[in-house]
């Protein structure tokens, strides 16, 4: 699952093979980018069946437009952008919110809960479950940003390129999502301290 392990075939070669029309050329492209697309779409829509259909749609669009890819960005960013657009369109069609409506009013607790034993909290299943739930309850866009940033190790500029937003907006959204989760984390630590 490591980013470097997945990107073994250079973009130009994989695009050339896929465009050559060989039986396995496009399958290799899908294999190389399916995790990014699947995780991005799943984090946006949070529904396995919709996710499967949307991923198919994404790769069909990639297949249809691959000849127009000009290597101005990485192939992963280009495919990610298509996946993001397809997911956004799906959520808009279902009239589901993309971002937290009260995003600007979110409390900033960036300076609390810094003094803790990392190994101990990582081993705390109850806390992990609570934060997993809190992560799932975030709005689709910040939830997806966190996944791209921490799981796929994409840079802020790559996420900005995928979501077609300014880097500052991405940084701000990541900061607020972190703050929301940190608040949950701080609340849990307070409960633990109160008990002890």
């Amino acid at each position, binding site marked *: 699952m490591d980013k470097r392990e997945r990107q073994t075939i250079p973009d130009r070669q994989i695009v050339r093979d896929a465009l050559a029309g060989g*039986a*396995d050329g*496009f*399958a*290799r492209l*899908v*294999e190389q980018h*399916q*995790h990014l*697309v*699947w*995780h991005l779409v*799943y984090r946006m829509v949070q529904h*396995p069946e919709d*996710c*499967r259909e949307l*991923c*198919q749609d994404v*790769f*069909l*669009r990639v*297949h*249809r*437009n691959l*000849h*127009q*890819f*000009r290597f*101005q*960005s990485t192939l992963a960013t*280009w495919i990610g*952008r*298509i996946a993001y*657009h*397809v997911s956004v*369109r799906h959520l808009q069609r279902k009239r589901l919110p993309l971002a937290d409506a009260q995003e600007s009013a979110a409390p900033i607790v960036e300076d609390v*809960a*810094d003094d*803790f034993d*990392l190994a101990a909290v*990582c081993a705390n299943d109850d806390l*992990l479950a609570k*934060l*997993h739930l809190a*992560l*799932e309850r975030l709005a689709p866009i910040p939830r997806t940003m*966190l*996944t791209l*940033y*921490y*799981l796929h*190790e994409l840079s*802020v500029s790559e996420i900005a390129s995928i979501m*077609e937003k300014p880097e500052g907006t991405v*940084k701000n959204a990541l*900061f607020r999502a*972190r703050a929301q*989760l*940190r608040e949950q*984390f701080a609340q849990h630590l307070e409960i633990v301290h109160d008990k002890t």
Partner: protein
Amino acid sequence: MTKHKQSDDPFDAFLSHVVRTAPLPEPPQDMAHSIAQLTRDFDEDSRVETLMAKTAIVAVILAVIGFSIYALTSVEAKTIALFEGTPWAFIATSGALFCCVKLWEIGHALVERRGKTNSNGVAIL
């Protein structure tokens, strides 16, 4: 927020652990092959559509030429004499070629529209 800062902040390290361990289904095993199969079917359909479009274009060209020849041969000698010197064959061929070019442009525009992207290379949905 940078990777450098992330490594300095223990909460960042913990959040990274939270995101990595969060329940997230993996893509289906057969996804790559089923999508590759879909694209093969799509290519096959496109090939058939292109072939049909080309056949239609050739049929139209032949019809135009045939009609021109028919019109030319059915004209009485008197009328021919009237129009003597007019390059009928040239006009008919030019008309057929013009139709051919126009149909080709329409067909090409349709294909382009099906796979159109914006200036950033993103498919127009």
